């Protein structure tokens, strides 16, 4: 078994127009910039992006928005300093927005990967974000039924990987990457370094069974 691919372009080649794509990262940490920029070059359109933020500045997800590749964003926090391309496309009505509380976003992604039909969470109960959703009261406490959130692809960033797709991370660059690896049908990991041999099983955070391809991209943001 060898999940290594030689370059970023080959890694993102299977992504078609209209795909639902998860993108790891929080702030500027753990974002697969190499894969996002390869996706931009590859040209797929009509994408739904699932990520915590909606890009900032002139890089990453912001560039996909700027180049009109995105029709929907599912995230918890689209408004970060410098998120001008999201704001412009949103104001123009070009991009739909689904706001999901951050913990619910992570858990919906995990639920998709874990084969669950959804879950009950107290988060958001009685608020605008629970409108139209099924609710239940258990032992006097209100819960909202949340559905799994699967994707066609996940773009991930890790510190090191091996040919089996095992991944380990660096500091707070881990964030959404492990859950997204599970939640997508085809997960592509960009790693700062590809190990010649297998990773020590004790340090593996994302087991390779959740990862379909691994590509080296040595640049650290």
């Amino acid at each position, binding site marked *: 078994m060898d999940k290594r691919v030689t370059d970023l372009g080959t890694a993102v080649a299977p992504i078609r127009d209209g795909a639902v794509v998860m993108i790891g990262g*929080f*702030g*500027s*940490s*753990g974002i697969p910039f190499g894969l996002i920029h390869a996706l931009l070059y590859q040209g797929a359109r009509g994408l739904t992006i699932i990520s915590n933020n909606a890009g900032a500045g002139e890089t990453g997800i912001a560039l996909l928005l700027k180049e009109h590749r995105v029709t929907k964003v599912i995230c*918890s*926090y*689209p*408004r*970060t300093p410098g998120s001008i391309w*999201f*704001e412009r496309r*949103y*104001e123009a009505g070009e991009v739909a*927005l689904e*706001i*999901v*509380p*951050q*913990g*619910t976003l*992570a*858990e919906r992604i*995990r639920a998709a990967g874990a084969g669950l039909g959804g879950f009950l*969470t*107290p*988060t*958001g*109960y*009685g*608020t*605008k*974000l629970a409108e139209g959703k099924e609710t239940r009261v258990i032992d006097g406490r209100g819960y909202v039924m949340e559905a799994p959130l699967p994707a066609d692809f996940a773009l991930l960033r890790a510190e090191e990987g091996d040919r089996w797709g095992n991944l380990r*991370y*660096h*500091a*707070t*660059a*881990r*964030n*959404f*990457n*492990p*859950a997204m690896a599970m939640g997508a049908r085809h997960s592509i990991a960009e790693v700062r370094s590809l190990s010649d041999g297998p990773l020590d099983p004790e340090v593996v*955070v994302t087991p390779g069974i959740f990862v379909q391809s691994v590509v080296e991209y040595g640049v*650290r*943001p």
Partner: protein
Amino acid sequence: MKSLSDADLAARVARDIPDGSYVNLGIGKPTHVSAYVPEGREVIYHSENGIIGVGPPPAEGSEDPELIDASKRLITTVPGAAYFEHTDSFAMMRGGHIDIAVLGAYQVAENGDLANWATLDETYPPAVGGAMDLVVGVPKVFVMMRHAGKDRTPKVLRRCTYPLTGLGVVTRVYTDLAVLDVTPRGFVLVDLAPGNTLDEVQALTEATIHV
């Protein structure tokens, strides 16, 4: 009226954080609280992006761009720190493992309702982040805010008018004028900022302050 500075307000909140607490500090004013926790107390800070044991900003030259907090600021770790992925991070919040959350607010109400994620301006894209998860799970939710708007619009209310973050979740409110507990009776005065009278503070408060 004598209004506390942001630094004095942070110090007032810090006094109420016991030794051995696990604490989540929200973005904005709450981030300053850690600098004022009295010497000798070991307080461990959680940040939603996957770290417990947040340390002070790094020295110049030793910054790690992949080591940040929820405000996206560069940080360090303290001894005993750990990294984890997002579902674990929110299990800590939602599952009641964190002792205290300190959050900013647009409005708070006497029934403990909190509004801090969206206004009534529909043209502005909303952004909730982790606030809703935090308030449902953390046993003590401290709110840190200006008592009233610059135009004296009350923010300490009978009922919130902005979209809610959580229902009945606030434990205690720290403002530049007073500290108030949320109780079944409504707001109960804990203390006034030095140089203020209850009448003056009540005049800037829509809800009744009980003593």
